[in-house]
């Protein structure tokens, strides 16, 4: 297996390119305060469900099934990101629920810059036994989509149609 070598400084840019090509949004925040401030602006006036990950700064309603089903926006942290495909990686052992990033029509994730890896290869060499740590590892690559009707691309089928990633520490 060949590991592609990107200089670490470029990974955020690479991730951003890959995700925006899929119609995802990326925000580069210089530090945690800026990230949380930006987050609060995005959430103003919306019904929000969020995990209790410290990086989020305690916004929104706590997780419950009903909250996820009713919320406009679900906010989570992320364990890793993969630069070459614009992918977010979630391991439930970090107390991220499965449904916060799945039921609401919009998903926002906040992640530290240095959690961005090059690719799936690197992820699997870092986490060779995902099943040990949690019951679910989920890779999310852009908004939910289908082309089942006349091959026309439609976003937001069952999962969120809009996804935004705030990268902290650019």
């Amino acid at each position: 297996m060949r590991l592609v070598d990107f200089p670490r400084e470029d990974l955020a840019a690479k991730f951003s390119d890959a995700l925006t090509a899929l119609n995802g949004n990326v925000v580069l925040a210089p530090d945690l305060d800026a990230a949380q401030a930006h987050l609060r602006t995005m959430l103003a006036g919306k019904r929000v469900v969020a995990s209790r990950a410290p990086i989020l700064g305690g916004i929104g309603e706590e997780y419950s099934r009903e909250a996820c089903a009713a919320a406009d926006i679900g906010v989570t942290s992320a364990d890793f990101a993969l630069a070459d495909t614009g992918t977010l990686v979630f391991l439930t052992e970090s107390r991220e629920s499965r449904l916060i990033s799945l039921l609401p029509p919009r998903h926002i994730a906040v992640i530290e810059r240095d959690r961005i890896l090059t690719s799936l290869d690197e992820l699997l060499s870092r986490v060779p036994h995902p099943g040990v740590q949690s019951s679910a590892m989920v890779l999310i690559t852009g908004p939910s989509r289908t082309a089942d009707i006349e091959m026309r691309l439609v976003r937001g089928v069952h999962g969120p149609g809009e996804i935004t990633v705030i990268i902290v520490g650019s």
Partner: protein
Amino acid sequence: MKSAPPQKIQQTLADPKLQKAIYSATGRLAGNRRKTIAADVLPDYQELRQHAHDLKKHTLDHLDAYLEEFERNVAARGGKVIWASTGAEACAFIGNLARERGVKLVVKSKSMTSEEIHLNEHLEKDGIDAVETDLGEYIIQLAGEKPYHIIAPALHKTREQVAEVLHAEADSTPEDLTAIARVALREKFLAAGIGITGANFLVADSGAIVLVENEGNARLSSSAPAIHIAVAGIEKLIPRAQDLAVFLKLLGRSATGQPLSVYTSFLAGPRRAGEPDGPEEFYVVLLDNGRTKILADPGKRQSLYCIRCGACLNHCPVYRKIGGYSYPWVYSGPIGKILTPQFMGREQDPWLPFASSLCGACGEVCPVKIEIPKILLELRQEIVEKSGDRRERMAFRMFAWIMRHPHIYAQFRWVRKLRKLPAAGPLKAWLSQRDLPDLPKKSFREQWRERGRA
């Protein structure tokens, strides 16, 4: 050939709208694949294919050991493996569990394996509502039809037809129709007592299943209901989580031209203490249903390497004309051509392996390098030997005899007289589609002799 190819073939060929839909949908999928495996995008594509092929071979060569390892690890994570030798056993387990738990509503994400065993019919008979949640599958379920293509189940339906099925306005856009389905299915996900999925891969060293999708319905089916059941053929096994690096790189690209599908879920057992959500119970139904029999065939066991990407369908000149419904079983296209006789018996649809021009495009694009044309040729030989057409055999015996007697062969200038023959049999079939070729005035031998070269 004893049984004739289905009427469906003629019907499909005669429908210009359907022809256009099939050709353009498969063409688009093929074009997208090409972009993501191009030499400058994925330079080690051929090595990856070989690696994937070798991994599958290795796994199937040691399947017993890997199955045991898988079961141990599923149990260690709090899940349970159910061994089903037949489809009936698998259905019985699922039906019984639903009854025991008082479940009346089940949500399903896309699983060709569940189609193979007629799971939905079984559940309906038990009074259980089994709702398909993949958009394409949902549509065809409402229409009472079967999937048209491994990746695009509703490929054959126009938006007007979909609108009718969903009781929507006739001029609804795909966005409108998707929104209607989203709302309707959301209720089901949250109310269902059991979520049933297939599995793209079973990971032996982790006791985990892997679900690859774009919509989110597999995630919802495996996360919202209290019970999750995954139904998968035993050949879906791969040795280690790390092997996903090879398979995931090939699957998305080969299927739809995506380097990674939108959602990849690696699920190892039910939710654990401290996790906010996830199923309380986790079952993996391992299905044989004829697979070990195929495994025993040295030349054709590679048919089981298939990762269900659909690339062979998209490149097959025959599939692109006759469409998914012309195939007798749930698996269509080139992979369907080689699996059907092996599962159902060669006598069932003996024409199937012959419905190919042997162009080889399928083998060329298969991400795990299944030698489909080679297997088709083996199947042809088996069929002809077991239940061949006596007249055809005689014709080929005569062919072989003539070809061993060159002076007789050289006499066949009568071929020029073909034009004057009444059109019957193969000649009639040829002429139904095209004109006869122009023949040269002199044969090669005649010309060669004239130049004094003999």
